[in-house]
């Protein structure tokens, strides 16, 4: 046998940030097996909920105001609801799936006994969530097109925008799953964090209509940047501004990845 290496070398931390494709594929295989079983219910909720909201707000408020700025109100809401779909289809799976699999099912414990590290587990889980969101996030846009939104080439960018947005929010959900003391505590997160993010994102009304301080605070809401990007992709790209919006989304995802990995490592590795 080779002599046991010095303590400081042997007990040093494993390489933390190298992500192997094979490890991600393992997590995706798990997600795929579950998705095959539940795709109907998942798709129904993920696609129809934002669609119903879009129809309700679009036609409800739309009957009160036909246009907002340069947009038909229905188009304004239709494009805005893409952000809502991205938020809901990522932050909730991030929160609940991660919590249930870690605390109740101990699925993560089982997976981490295989050649899979925590950062790969987090990355694999969130990329699956984001991939699904990038499909479901297009549902409001398709409905809006059915009600008169003109198709444009820029719409092809929407799945990418939603993917990056969902990475950030999925990771936000995973991180919060590591800091809540019980599953019931998600009520605080949903009411105190998710709902304000959802309401102050320029989805149903322009944030310029809000008080100045809210307008400033909204700039820190990643969902606002997603909504802006989607509108620009649909109605006309503004390269400089959009680079900024995209940068914010990437920064948000990167920050959340670090927090989610740290949180998961703290909870899963004793």
């Amino acid at each position: 046998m080779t002599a046991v290496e010095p303590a400081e070398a042997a007990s040093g931390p494993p390489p933390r940030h190298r992500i192997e494709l094979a490890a991600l594929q393992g997590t995706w295989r798990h997600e795929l097996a579950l998705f095959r079983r539940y795709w109907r219910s998942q798709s129904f909720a993920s696609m129809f909920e934002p669609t119903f909201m879009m129809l309700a707000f679009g036609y409800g408020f739309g009957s009160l105001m036909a246009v907002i700025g340069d947009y038909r109100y229905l188009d304004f809401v239709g494009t805005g609801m893409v952000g809502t779909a991205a938020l809901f289809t990522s932050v909730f799976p991030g929160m609940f799936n991660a919590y249930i699999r870690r605390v109740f099912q101990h699925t993560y414990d089982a997976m981490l006994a295989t050649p899979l590290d925590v950062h790969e587990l987090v990355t694999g889980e969130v990329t699956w969530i984001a991939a699904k969101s990038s499909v479901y996030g297009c549902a409001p846009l398709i409905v809006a097109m059915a009600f008169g939104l003109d198709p444009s080439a820029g719409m092809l960018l929407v799945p990418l925008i939603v993917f990056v947005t969902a990475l950030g929010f999925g990771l936000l959900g995973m991180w919060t799953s590591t800091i809540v003391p019980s599953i019931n505590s998600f009520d605080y997160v949903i009411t105190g964090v998710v709902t304000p993010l959802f309401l102050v994102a320029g989805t149903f009304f322009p944030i310029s209509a809000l008080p100045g301080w809210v307008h400033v605070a909204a700039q820190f809401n990643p969902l606002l940047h997603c909504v802006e990007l989607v509108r620009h992709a649909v109605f006309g790209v503004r390269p400089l501004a959009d680079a900024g919006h995209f940068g914010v989304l990437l920064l948000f995802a990167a920050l959340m990845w670090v927090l989610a990995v740290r949180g998961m490592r703290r909870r899963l590795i004793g």
Partner: protein
Amino acid sequence: MTTARSLAGASSSPSGGGGPAIALRGVVKRFGGLAAVDGLDLEVPAGICLGLLGPNGAGKSTTMRMLTAQALADEGTIEVLGHPIPRESKRARAQMGVVPQQDNLDEELTARENLEVFARLYRVPRAGRRAAVDAALALAHLTGRQHTRVDDLSGGMRRRLLIARGLVHRPRLVLLDEPTVGLDPQLRAELWGLIDALRAGGTTVLMSTHYIEEAERLADECALMSHGRVTARGTPADLIARHAGSSVVEHYGPPERLAEVESLARAAGLPTRRTGPSVSVLRAESIPDSLADALGPDGVRRAANLEDVFVVLTGEQVD
């Protein structure tokens, strides 16, 4: 794609050869102020089944988790299959299978899907994946129930599936953490057959258990853990001979009588153990005639066993 084989092959130190499969040196693991593992030294030679015995809280499960780097040692060094842990834990994990004490199968998936997922996670090459899953199902006698959801399987089937999941990639080392805890005797015997087959196939097995009979039946060697360290190590026969002698005399009676027997035996330097309404005097073959007369003729003689060793060394009763 990286496979288990290529992961294993990239070791910084040779993991093959005749070295131990597991080597822990001076390992300490603390949770707050409590040392769950406290200066543990343990070597497991390749190809044997080592039973890790100890009462609840002895540090067995923590030790198991440190071998997969799911718990990190505060002090000491750990090497598994030639890989230093946790630095190369991923490479070690690719070559070992883990059967946890707690059932953590995915209940929403079928038996086959569970194995398929883990074959992928363990990086079984695509060409051999189906055969590996089929073999694992056959090993667990679940071929006929492969498409049954886990939450519809019986407790015994789930336990067999849990073992099959840890073996789907044909590991060189298997960690079994209380593999038969909570199972009825028939299911336990069934799983012993599975573990026996593993051992016969040359797989190294580290099995924590607090079932003495299980350790006697399956383990080539036993290590007794107490308060986070190994207090005795050897083959079951060695341990019995060393710590309990060849025979034991059990005395039954009221508490005063048991106290008297204990007192007499201890005065003669013989270890004793209490078992409910009886006191057992160990190393009964060494009882001098004078003590035998004092103890009286009411004792029942039997062969010493590993349970006697366990109780004497840990001071705790077995389940």
